[in-house]
């Protein structure tokens, strides 16, 4: 699913430098990415999603060489192939839960919002146990409920790769386990691949594999 070869990246005008000779993730795998703060974990997710471009090397996701795509193609690729789950949920406070889940379909022409999509959104909300909260705004939800809505938003376009950036970082221990259960179940159900940045070492056993950033060559502060 993910194949990174000879990757080199540095921020313009910054000291941070990331070198990743080889890194891969198989289809359906659930991989945890660990490493100290500022080591470049989020940078890697942004490179895989095509938000950042490498200085050298190739990044291939789901058979598409992301690093070779133009701006528009990369955006379309990102929204159709990759689902993002953020640490702070990043729901839009002025939209209801339903509208937040449907957001990817409203901000691009690469996805078409139709009756089937709406039905799937309702089903997803049901799977996540928030079907009675769909008309509420994020400010009316608990942290756990917000993350469930964010996962629904990430899964709705049926992405083949889920990138979770410390998705459980802001949750209490009970919610952490519960949300991870839901995320894993959904990834399995939708036959997706999961690459999750985490600082929670007690959760690592649940992943298929752990990629430690100390195995890569990174210096400076991301």
């Amino acid at each position: 699913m993910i194949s990174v070869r000879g990757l080199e990246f540095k921020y313009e005008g910054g000291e941070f430098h990331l070198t990743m000779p080889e890194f891969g993730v198989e289809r359906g795998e659930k991989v945890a990415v660990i490493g100290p703060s500022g080591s470049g974990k989020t940078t890697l997710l942004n490179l895989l999603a095509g938000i950042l471009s490498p200085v050298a090397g190739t990044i291939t996701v789901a058979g598409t060489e992301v690093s070779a795509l133009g701006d528009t193609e990369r955006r379309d690729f990102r929204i159709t192939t990759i689902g993002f789950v953020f640490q702070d949920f990043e729901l839009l406070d002025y939209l209801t839960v339903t509208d937040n889940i449907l957001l990817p379909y409203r901000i691009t022409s690469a996805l078409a919002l139709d009756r089937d999509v709406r039905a799937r959104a309702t089903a997803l909300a049901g799977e996540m146990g928030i079907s009675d909260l769909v008309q509420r705004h994020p400010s009316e939800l608990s942290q756990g409920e917000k993350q469930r809505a964010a996962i629904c938003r990430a899964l709705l376009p049926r992405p083949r790769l889920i990138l979770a950036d410390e998705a459980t970082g802001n949750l209490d221990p009970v919610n952490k386990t519960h949300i991870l259960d839901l995320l894993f179940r959904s990834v399995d159900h939708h036959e997706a691949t999961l690459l999750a940045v985490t600082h929670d070492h007690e959760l690592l056993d649940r992943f298929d594999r752990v990629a430690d950033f100390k195995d890569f060559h990174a210096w400076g502060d991301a």
Partner: protein
Amino acid sequence: MIDNLYLAWQYVRFNRAKYWTLVACITLVAFLPIALELLLDESEKQLLSRAVTTPLVIGAKGSSLDLVMNSLYFGDEVPEIITMGAAQDVAETSLALPIPVYVRFRARGHPIVGTTVDYFDFRGLDVADGRMIAVLGDCVLGATAAQRLGVGVGDGVVSSPETVFDLAGVYPLRMNIVGVLERTHTSDDLGIFVDLKTAWIMQGLVHGHQDLTTVEDQQLILTEEEGNVVGSPKVFEFTEITQENLDSFHFHGDEAAAPITAVIAVPVDEKSGTILRGRYLTPEAVHQIIVPKEVIDGLLTNIFRIKNVLDAVILVVGLATVLAMILVFALSLRLRRREIDTIFRIGCGRATITRLLAAEIGIIVVSSAVLIGALAAAVARYDHALVRMLFIR
């Protein structure tokens, strides 16, 4: 585009206070000059059209503007009172037709215009319903006055006391409405027209009371000498003129000394008008003669001078508002940086983000435009009344 509008609409709906504040700012700043322009256009039209059709006005020396406002537009500022002698003086010259007017009293906010039948011919006023005034106590109403008071032919209208505590002064008089005038879209629409003598009744100069020669109650008579009877304060004065008591109304004193507020002089020809004006230019002249158009031209010049200053002020305020709005949007963008970053990471293009923000601004601008349009339409609909309220009163 629909999705952009939908998201933008959700944003403005959620941030109602910010949305309405911005809409109010734009609406007020843009509406003010439009309203000013509409009202000044209407005031110019109203004031000039009436002034150009009134050749000359004679009144007490003093404010020519008060004189014009009272005698042409029935404004509530009453000029110095003159006497009927002024009208008789004009008549004696044979240079112009004098039309005396006495605009002092009011009935439920509407001016009572005491005048002669010549006034109706001069202004080209016809009755739409009923007939013209014929006897004491009759009145005809302008179309707007009848509409606002909710009265018609056969009803009555009572004059208002000049002050609330006017116990010893003018008694309210009930006037019989005998006609309603056709609408003219001038100040005549607001007037309640009566014969001069009816106006004098309101002042107590003409009055009617019990016949003292036939009363049985001797307490009503103070003294009786050689046919002259002096009544006591107990004598009942009529507050309504009817067919039965009409003959009892009589005038005390010389009619030439009776009060009026102005004389509209309609010269026989231009030369007569010039000669007549010349007669009032001497230092000994007790009255002034004015050409209303000249007075109104002067007033409008002043109004437009003030408008130019206001335009400059509005321009500066408008500029400040635009700058403030740019600041608000810039700060808003800063506050929403994280949100913009999120939708960008999800896969939204920069062009879409620009369109989203443009849609939000568009909704605010369109809402303001709709409000401005509605307010401008309301001003245009009621400009006649507004001009009267703001510039004439």
